[in-house]
């Protein structure tokens, strides 16, 4: 099966267990049970209003219970009031046989009430979801598959006992290990080769491209486990052999000594890092055997997936301990950055409840445990070759080989490998490309999704290489980039063009004109004694979306003109609620009064059905399935891959358009006394909002409140609920609505009339994006460039970022302050990745349970140019340009720009990360 950024999920029943998902609203912090709000209260209607700003702002500045780690049993209406506690014990050794726990060493006051082992899970009959394949608990007598693999789940009725045990386990000595086996070996997670050979002209068809030939994998490995990339002289080579022949030809060309071509070959390695979201993973669950209901509270980026994974886990459990229903509630997320997308943590929360029935149990990582068990960024080892025509500065060919350390479990390794590989040529137009990538199993902590998602690593290697090419040619680094920038309509590595705006020339112009770049020589000359000054530049083009993205949204308006929005997107700091409110306001003339996010169960009226894998389904299967008017390729997506603005708000925006066209517009016509035969009755596209008043030229402005009241009076459409699906293009469907067949970028619709309930409207026709689009690497991209000036103390190697400027484009900006904040946060995370953060692999790394902040360094305010960081966001190309994802791209160029600046200052090119003060001091002698 093709690597996919997400596993397929279904709503309703999973493993034969009914699943409901709902959102956990904020509760005001106070002792004793508090009622949950069904929605967020906007500042205007909450404390101390009116206030502009984030719609979740009041809850976050008043300490409301908001995050999964905030909730205890006593906060949950209808639950028993006492909270029990769970401790997940993890292995710090993956080279010796695990022989069990030594609980006799525990203080009697710290002894658990229940000990859950692998044998207990086997007796219960759990089914590990395919995505998390492997033992959830290492069996006694086996060597742990990876450092940090859980070995036991300890359950405590009393907090004090739990707390004592937690500290005792951190001290060590509680796990017994026997004979040495060495680390376990497992097959690699994925190996792919992406090769493209362009035609003779930009317009000519490619001679070879993955979009046409398919994605290829060698299928043969050496005894070491590494793939054999060369085409083997056997018939089984099949499709791989043809691609490999093209790839090897590109490499041969790069190796040929052509004096007209500058050829560089460089190695670059990147480190493992932790997402270091500030709220460690936590969850709360209660299994009541009498009702056979499992209630679970979680905070994840992928609620739909988490609920279904728990259902799969327990779907074949012993009948007397198998839930009949799972009620999953999702709280706000205290940071995510990808690290809470498809994490196995919810499985352990559920198991804790199953093994302590009738008692609510809380499982919460402390920071040591989060380092030991949380998903990490992949470490990459890369070797890149580039050939550049000396006369023109045009890149002739590029080849690279990537090796990823995926750690102990597969998780997203295959997907990160392919995204990193297909992003390896950045924003450049390269006619011959050959990139191999392999994601390997190791005994390290599992690596998975994290902001930048493979391209941070590969574009850092590329952008430092481009800088080196510029020096070697020599050619101005920005001019070199300009000559090679992908033009609009140019083809990506997989052979398809981007389907969105491509604005590399503007980005480069902005960088070139900025004073940091323009005055770089002056500042270098004027450096104070003992200080080295250097300026570096870099650009990145980052994909957003996954190729199978879903959006669920509902918008309602009441007779007073108050607007409520529901969405399945998750708020993890990305401001999705505020973005929803703003995007809907463009259609309805008023910022929403209530926005509810992370809600999947509000969309039952759509009656969605799904089957198959959206990444692997055949065209024939999709065509057959699409005849069911309720079928969609997938139902709900994680909030990840920078899809919040483009995808997360799309369904709500489309719902708002329906409410306007079939509810507010007919009501407005009635108020204007325009009958259906009047030509103006068709001019709804020409109407616009000025404040909360609807304007149509030549007619009196109408207040929203009056229009809404009339819409309710008429029994018009006052609410709409939609589902949308994107496979690098939106599915488009037609629905029969009053007086018009409505065709829009949605595939399911329900509407509400007056004060009635939502009623599904079956689509009359649908066009899902063709399944061959699954061969696209990405069709969506945003671009960002960074220029940075550093000052390095020659004696100590200490680096100061004196000034920095990032310029980005992201289409329509829904919430400017959120975009700026993401860019500033991305800059800080980039600085940390380039200069500070690192986790050693294996025994010295986080899997040993001894890592925490202090030892792990992240960027603080004093590491950053807080008063000298300028962010510029290019305006959209047109008022109708949709929003584009930008949360990841803003981090990427920061890293190579810093490395290029360090080179400019010191003359040394570092080719591994992070570049620490000690390393800089080392090269300065």
């Amino acid at each position, binding site marked *: 099966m093709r690597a996919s950024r997400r596993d397929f999920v279904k709503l309703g029943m999973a493993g034969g267990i009914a699943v409901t998902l709902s959102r956990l609203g904020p509760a005001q*912090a*106070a002792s004793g049970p508090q009622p949950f709000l069904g929605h967020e209260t906007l500042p205007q209607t909450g404390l101390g209003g009116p206030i502009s700003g984030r719609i979740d702002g009041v809850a976050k500045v008043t300490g409301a219970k908001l995050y999964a780690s905030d909730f205890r049993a006593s906060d949950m209406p209808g639950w028993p009031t006492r909270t029990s506690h769970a401790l997940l014990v993890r292995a710090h050794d993956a080279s010796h046989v695990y022989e069990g726990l030594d609980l006799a060493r525990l203080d009697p006051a710290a002894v658990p009430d229940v000990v859950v082992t692998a044998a207990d899970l086997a007796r219960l009959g759990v089914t590990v979801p395919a995505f998390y394949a492997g033992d959830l608990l290492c069996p006694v007598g086996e060597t742990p598959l990876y450092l940090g693999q859980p070995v036991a789940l300890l359950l405590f009725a009393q907090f004090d006992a739990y707390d004592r045990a937690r500290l005792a386990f951190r001290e060590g000595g509680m796990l017994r290990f026997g004979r040495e086996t060495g680390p376990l070996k497992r097959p690699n997670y994925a190996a792919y080769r992406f090769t493209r050979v362009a035609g003779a002209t930009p317009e000519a068809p490619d001679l070879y491209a993955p979009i046409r030939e398919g994605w290829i994998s060698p299928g043969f490995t050496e005894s070491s486990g590494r793939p054999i990339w060369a085409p083997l002289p056997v018939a089984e080579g099949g499709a791989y052999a043809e691609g490999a022949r093209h790839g090897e030809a590109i490499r041969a060309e790069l190796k040929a000594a052509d004096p007209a071509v500058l050829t560089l070959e460089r190695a670059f390695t990147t480190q493992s890092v932790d997402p270091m979201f500030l709220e460690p993973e936590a969850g709360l669950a209660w299994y009541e055997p009498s009702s056979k209901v499992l209630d679970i509270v979680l905070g994840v980026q992928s609620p739909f997936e988490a609920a279904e994974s728990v259902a799969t886990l327990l779907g074949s459990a012993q009948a007397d301990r198998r839930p009949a229903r799972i009620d999953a509630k999702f709280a*706000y997320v205290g940071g995510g950055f990808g690290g809470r997308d498809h994490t196995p943590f919810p499985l352990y929360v559920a198991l804790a409840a199953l093994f302590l029935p009738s008692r609510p149990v809380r499982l919460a990582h402390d920071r040591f445990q989060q380092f030991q068990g949380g998903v990490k960024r992949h470490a990459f080892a890369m070797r890149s070759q580039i050939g550049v025509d000396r006369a023109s500065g045009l890149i002739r060919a590029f080849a690279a080989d990537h090796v990823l350390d995926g750690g102990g479990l597969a998780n997203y390794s295959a997907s990160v490998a392919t995204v990193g590989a297909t992003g390896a040529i950045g924003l450049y137009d390269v006619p011959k490309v050959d990139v191999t990538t392999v994601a390997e199993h190791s005994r390290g902590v599992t690596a998975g999704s994290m902001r930048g998602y493979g391209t941070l690593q590969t574009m850092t290697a590329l952008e430092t290489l481009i800088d080196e090419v510029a020096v070697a040619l020599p050619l101005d680094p920005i001019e070199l980039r300009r000559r090679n920038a992908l033009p609009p309509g140019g083809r990506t590595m997989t052979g398809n063009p981007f389907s969105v705006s491509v604005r590399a020339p503007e980005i480069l112009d902005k960088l070139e004109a900025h004073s940091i770049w323009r005055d770089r020589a002056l500042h270098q000359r004027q450096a104070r004694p003992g200080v080295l000054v250097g300026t570096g530049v870099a650009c990145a083009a980052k994909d957003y979306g996954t190729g199978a993205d879903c959006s669920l949204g509902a918008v309602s308006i009441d007779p007073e003109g108050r607007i409520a929005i529901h969405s399945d997107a998750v708020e993890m700091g990305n401001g999705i609620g505020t973005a929803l409110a703003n995007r809907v306001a463009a259609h309805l003339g008023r910022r929403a009064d209530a926005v509810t996010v992370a809600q999947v169960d509000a969309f039952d009226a759509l009656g969605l059905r799904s089957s198959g894998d959206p990444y692997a389904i055949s065209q024939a299967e999709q065509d057959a399935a699409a005849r069911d008017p309720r079928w969609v390729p997938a139902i709900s997506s994680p909030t990840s891959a920078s899809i919040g603005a483009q995808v997360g708000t799309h369904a709500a925006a489309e719902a708002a358009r329906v409410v306007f066209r079939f509810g507010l517009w007919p009501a407005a016509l009635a108020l204007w006394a325009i009958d259906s035969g009047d030509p103006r009755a068709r001019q709804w596209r020409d109407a616009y909002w000025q404040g909360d008043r609807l304007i149509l030229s030549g007619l009196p402005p109408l207040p929203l409140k009056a229009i809404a009241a009339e819409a309710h009076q008429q029994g018009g459409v006052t609410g709409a609920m939609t589902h949308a699906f994107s496979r690098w293009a939106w599915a488009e469907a037609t629905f029969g609505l009053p007086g018009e067949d409505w065709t829009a970028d949605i595939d399911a619709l329900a509407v509400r009339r007056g004060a009635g309930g939502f009623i599904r409207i079956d689509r009359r026709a649908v066009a899902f994006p063709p399944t061959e689009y699954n061969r696209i690497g990405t069709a969506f991209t945003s671009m960002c460039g960074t220029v940075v000036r550093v000052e390095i103390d020659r004696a100590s190697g200490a680096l100061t970022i004196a000034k920095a400027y990032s310029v980005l484009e992201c289409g329509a900006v829904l919430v400017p302050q*959120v975009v700026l904040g993401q860019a500033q946060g991305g800059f800080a*995370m980039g600085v940390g990745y380039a200069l500070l953060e690192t986790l050693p692999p294996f025994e010295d790394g986080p899997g040993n349970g001894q890592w925490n902040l202090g030892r792990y360094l992240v960027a603080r305010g004093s590491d950053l140019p807080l008063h000298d960081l300028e962010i510029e966001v290019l305006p959209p190309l047109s008022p109708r340009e949709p929003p584009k994802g930008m949360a990841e791209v803003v981090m990427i160029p920061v890293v190579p720009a810093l490395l290029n600046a360090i080179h400019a200052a010191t003359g040394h090119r570092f080719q591994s990360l992070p570049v620490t003060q000690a390393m800089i001091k080392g090269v300065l002698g």
Partner: protein
Amino acid sequence: MTTISLTINGRPQGPVAIRDDLTMNDFLREVLGMTGTKFGCGAAQCLSCAVIIDEADGTSATMPTCIAPAVSFDGKAIRTVEGHARDGRLTPLQARFIEHFAFQCGYCTPGFLNEGQVLLERLEKAPIARADLERVVAEALDGHLCRCSGYVKYHEAVRAVILADPARYLA
């Protein structure tokens, strides 16, 4: 076990008997259910757990609660994020945090809010020159870790409160 009493947000708490090695963070979150004070690292490195301690001499300072035993707070008066808004009205700093989009996920906000509030109260008693404002704010907030925001808007929000009332905070 030790019995402690203290004042939290102006309300007396205790006497309550607790284990001597129970952290103040767990006392707030597990015993009292006051989860506005966050747990981030357990190593006093991120300061999302910081609360305000009001001393008898009228001075205030923040202190991390994740490694400090609760018994060390016996007899003390502290303020937490839950205690800033009064009578349904946000403080100027809370309001500016929202207006400036200072935070994103918001998990570090209680610590920044407490630190900023202590700074404002300190400046009320000892105003500073305008020229020192950026430096003083940066030094005050530097111990606090935020993974989302890049810190810029936190600093902007604190400065905005001060600049909106220069007679109170600036010399």
